[in-house]
């Protein structure tokens, strides 16, 4: 991978991270909670927010969340969500 590709990937990841964090901030009283793991398993996000997150990722980033993607590890932290979007966008 060239340094240009690496820089582009880093920029894209930062954009996705900012967008995901902005979206999830509506559902938490304390945005520092979004930096931790366990967004779903730890109860930071309620289940209705989780449903809306899936729809938002599809709308915002033009990806499709398939049934086989519905694994908790893909959505339990902002890091995991950013990585998931990058994988789906590259596929």
């Amino acid at each position, binding site marked *: 991978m060239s340094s240009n590709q690496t820089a582009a990937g880093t920029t894209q990841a930062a954009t996705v991270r900012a967008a995901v964090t*902005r979206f999830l*901030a*509506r559902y938490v*009283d304390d945005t520092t909670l979004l930096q931790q793991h366990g967004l779903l398993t730890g109860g930071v996000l*309620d*289940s209705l927010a*989780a449903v809306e997150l899936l*729809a938002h990722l599809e709308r915002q980033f033009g990806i499709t969340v398939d049934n086989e993607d*519905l694994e908790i590890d893909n*959505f339990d932290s902002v890091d995991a969500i950013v990585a998931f979007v990058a994988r789906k966008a590259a596929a």
Partner: protein
Amino acid sequence: MNTTTTTTVGVVGAGVMGASLAHALTARGIDTVLQDTDPAALDEAMHRIAAAGRLARLTGAAGPGRPGPARQARLTGELTELAGCDLVIENVTEDPAVKRSVHQRLDAVLPATAVVAVNTSAVPISDLALATGHPERVIGAHFMNPVATSTMVEVVRTPYVAQWALDRLLEILGQFGKESVVVADAAGFVINRCLMIFINEAAALLDDGVATPQQVDRLFRGCLGHRTGPLRTADIIGLDTVVRTLDVLRDQYGPERFTPSDRLLRMVAAGQHGRKTGQGFYSYTTDGAAA
């Protein structure tokens, strides 16, 4: 007493709760008939059921342990289509007159062995039971949304309920993977008689300048261990529903104990009903930040 082993459940009302119930029942392999007189509500329910299916898959709520393979809910506009159900769960709007009318019509189409559950936030069950010809089979069942991921049901027993009907309801709830606590019939039961006071006072103290919504909810989570604070919970329930529930409680217990706060009334009048409208105590619009 009904001793059939194949259970069919009817769900009356295809709103948020009705769709959530239909999803959770079918995900558990229980035959389900979803009835609503509004075709648009049935269409919307299909989308909600699909979204609920994704959530259940994500959280594992539809995983191992269910009694049978997932089913497809049958949709209908006619109450007569519920005639073969072992249990019917009514979820229409929190208006005692509307509920009474639905229960009288349900009573006319159901066999005497069918059990009727009233899914309500606050409407007293006895009044509805006594409006029918079979008060012995009418029981309160207050489900939490989303149904598939909530394990507990508040069951409300009137003085008129037959033991066979209560046993049958608890048996079906068991098939449904739910635990239950059986309480007596008094408006608001346990959950909403307490919760509505929290929500109403939390809304009022915003107008008093005591705290912000975020501060209120953080305190309830941090100090009392609540999973969500009262204002965010109100946004999920819907502020219009909160006001209707407070109205029912006011009619039962008096205005000095339950009168919707000015803040709640203003927000409902302005169309700020919570998550479903994109704005409540918090903002849920595309580019909105927390209010």
